[in-house]
């Protein structure tokens, strides 16, 4: 922050006390971290919801393609199963969209709004820095004249330099104070700001998954297939495969 590219007059006196500078850097540092984290969080949230939507859409495609297969016309049982599946998928997709909308409204939008304050903050800090540089420069100038032999012209210049310095110093002090006040307040505001969003996020999951549980639970009942444990499923699948392989027309590999 205190990087001066060209050493155009460095004042001898430490015009900003080290503690003040340290405080400022600490507070600003925290905010910079927060900025980064909220930005990335927002991006990730958005990508996560996009992926969620994509997943739901591909689930709908499964049942849609099945429904359009001519087998449905021939086999009533198959048709019934596929129709029930399709209905379930479409309903789930609708609920998913609702969930995503809610997340968009209560999590992503607020994150964005929070993030939009940072450019103003960063600009303000830059301007403080500019003010500091000007302050330093003019302070150095004053010190330079103070050290010289006190002739008339020198005194005149010294006076002028002091006149120039005064408003600039006042300006810096004012900026510094304001930022040192505002920054911690802004930082702390995150505590109250984000809690509702995340509460909303959890609730949205509960709403969605309750529906999902109900819909697929009903469907499982309807399809009349007992839920079997994993090992039994595995055996079933192996049995089906052996049945097929027993046919001569199926190649052995």
């Amino acid at each position, binding site marked *: 922050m205190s990087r001066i590219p060209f050493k155009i007059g460095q004042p001898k006196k430490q015009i900003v006390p080290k503690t003040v500078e340290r405080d400022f850097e600490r507070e600003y540092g*925290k905010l910079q971290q*927060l900025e980064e*984290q909220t930005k*990335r*969080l927002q991006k*990730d949230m958005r990508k996560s919801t996009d992926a969620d939507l994509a*997943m739901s859409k*591909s689930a709908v*495609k*499964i049942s849609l*393609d*099945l429904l359009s297969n001519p*087998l449905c016309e*021939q086999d009533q*049982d*198959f048709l019934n*199963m596929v129709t029930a599946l399709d209905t379930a998928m479409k309903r789930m997709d609708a609920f998913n969209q609702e969930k995503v909308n*809610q997340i968009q409204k209560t999590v992503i939008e*607020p994150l964005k*709004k929070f993030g939009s304050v940072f450019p*103003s903050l960063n*600009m*303000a800090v830059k*301007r*403080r820095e*500019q003010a500091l540089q000007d302050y330093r420069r003019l302070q150095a100038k004053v010190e330079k004249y103070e050290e010289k032999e006190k002739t008339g012209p020198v*005194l*005149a210049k010294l*006076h*002028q330099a002091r006149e*120039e310095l005064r*408003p*600039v110093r*006042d*300006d810096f002090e004012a900026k510094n104070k*304001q930022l040192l006040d505002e920054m911690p307040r802004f930082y702390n*505001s995150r*505590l109250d*700001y984000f809690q*509702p969003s995340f*509460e*909303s996020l*959890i609730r949205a*999951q*509960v709403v969605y*998954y309750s529906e999902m549980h109900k819909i*697929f*639970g009903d469907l*499982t009942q309807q*399809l009349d*297939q007992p839920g079997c444990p*994993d090992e039994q499923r595995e055996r079933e*699948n192996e049995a*089906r*495969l052996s049945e*097929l392989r027993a*046919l001569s*027309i*199926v*190649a052995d590999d």
Partner: protein
Amino acid sequence: MTSHGDDALSSRTGAPGGDDRLSEDRSLLQQRLAVRELLDTEVSYLHVLQLCASDIRSRLQQLPQGDLDVLFSNIDDIIKVNSRLLHDLQETASREEEQVQLIGNTFLEFQEELEQVYKVYCASYEQALLLVETYRKEPELQREIQGIIEAVLPQAGPSGLSFLLVIPLQRITKYPLLLQKILENTLPDASAYAVLQRATSALQDVVTNINEYKRRKEVASKYTKVEPLSLRERLARINTHTLSKKTTRLSQLLKQEAGLVPRTEDKEFDDLEEKFHWVSLCVTELKSNVAAYLDNLEAFLRFRPQDYNLEIPGGPVVQYCYLARDLQLQAFPEFKQQLEAQVWQPLCSLAKALAGPQNLIKKRLDKLLDFERVEEKLLEVGSMTYEEEAARHTYQALNSLLVAELPQFNQLAMRWLSQILCAFVTLQRDLAKQVLQRAEDSLAQLPHHHLSEPAFRKLVEDALGQTSHQLHAFQENFEKVLPPPTTQPLLPGAERQVQALLSRYGPGKLYQVTSNISGAGTLDLTLPRGHIVALLQNKDTKGNSSRWLVDTGGHRGYVPAGKLEVYHVVPTEEELRGQARPHKDSQHQTPEPTSAPVPSVPTVTQVVAVYPFVARSSHEVSLQAGQRVTVLEAHDKKGNPEWSLVEVNGQRGYVPSSFLARAPSPAPWGWSLPS
């Protein structure tokens, strides 16, 4: 075999009465002998089988287990079936009169089992023979095997293993012949006759079926595999023979398309093929859709919003992070795993199984085209070559194979497909249950868990509205921190220049240079920071709006627009007085000139002494820094502008002009000090 029958008939027609009796007795005797033969041979057959299966097989240690499985195939099953057959046959011996009938019945009972068990053995027989051949090529091994066999069954002779392995084949084909022998010696009107006849033809069917099964299996294994051939390999395979085959097929197909030649319509097969086609479509589509679903799931799991740290120590944010982490580490990976095992893998296996039938269908069509051409030729020429005959057989074999097994395939595939879909649904339900459990636990910890969903949504909306205002306030506050002031108090000599520019262009056109400009081109100006210029044009001749044409009061030229800032001229006392409305500077106090009565001489101006000055003569007057003075004349009697006539503290005198300056410009504008 039939000679006996002839003898029986001739003797019957030859000698009436007692001769009948004699021939009857003879047939009866023959019959009994045949029955005896059946039973005896069955006993010895079974004995040999058992020796092979136990003694010989166990001693053939040097052969790998896989080989033994191929060689001996399902000999144990055969032994089981034949043991029971023998037992039942032996039981019939106790019931003399009905024995033949009972034998017939027994065979009818065992028909199915015999077919099932022997067809397996026969189908692998060819492969077994191949193995035997390879052993023969190794003299050492061959000798060992021979030694073992001779020790157990010396009657096997020099051909040892192959002699033994063919025995079951010989036996199953012998049954019809043995039964036939008994039949011939049975009276046609006996009750046993019909039964025995049925049994004989049944066993004949068994043999036929076994042969057919073997042929189908051979054809299927020849055509089901598609070898992944490289282009070069494909090209290498092309010879005149294959080329002619293919071109012939193609021309046949074209002839059909053109209607020149009737196509062999086989509605039954076409329907089957169509259904198979739909089943394949279903499987492949489902497989690719599930793959897409899994990809999306994977993508979804890649994002971890819970990993970002907002440094919020408690509350819903933390709850959410726990929940999300839990879901991502446990619930979802489990779901994905199960999906892969119970939906994806089976689909892959099912899809792979499609390849066999697909190839056979294709091959059948090829052979059909060959077959049709052969039929044509037959009509024209009246005969066909051996090759052509073989083509016809192959087509027929393929066709019957497919007609027999495609329906089964379709049915099995559909059944499996349904099971897979059910698995998919069940897994979704289970995932929902897992997530819901965890999410509800989190919900219970939240501050507003008791609220209904609509009430909560309203609450959140309100809360967000409020905080949005708060954020806006923050933003505004930050925006109030403005750029640092760039105006410098003007050097005294510049005063005039500014006045001149002001009077010529007006206050709105004045700009101050914010940092040193060094001009590059001939028309570009070089100006120090703080210099005042007037804007002539806010773009150059080429239309570039970042290069402005300005007037410095002496020179005109171009300067970069970014280094200029609007310059607000401090109004003179006159202007202040002249203005009807007050100056809207709500900021730092503008040093408003007091209403000290000053004679309204146009050239009189209020200035401030910048530097102290000590008068050295009575014409001069002393100054203190910061003192306000009134300028009466901005030059001396000789017109030298370096001296000005001023009045200060009631005294008049000359002072150096350069020691004077306008009143300092107001405090940095635009900055509002916090209240």
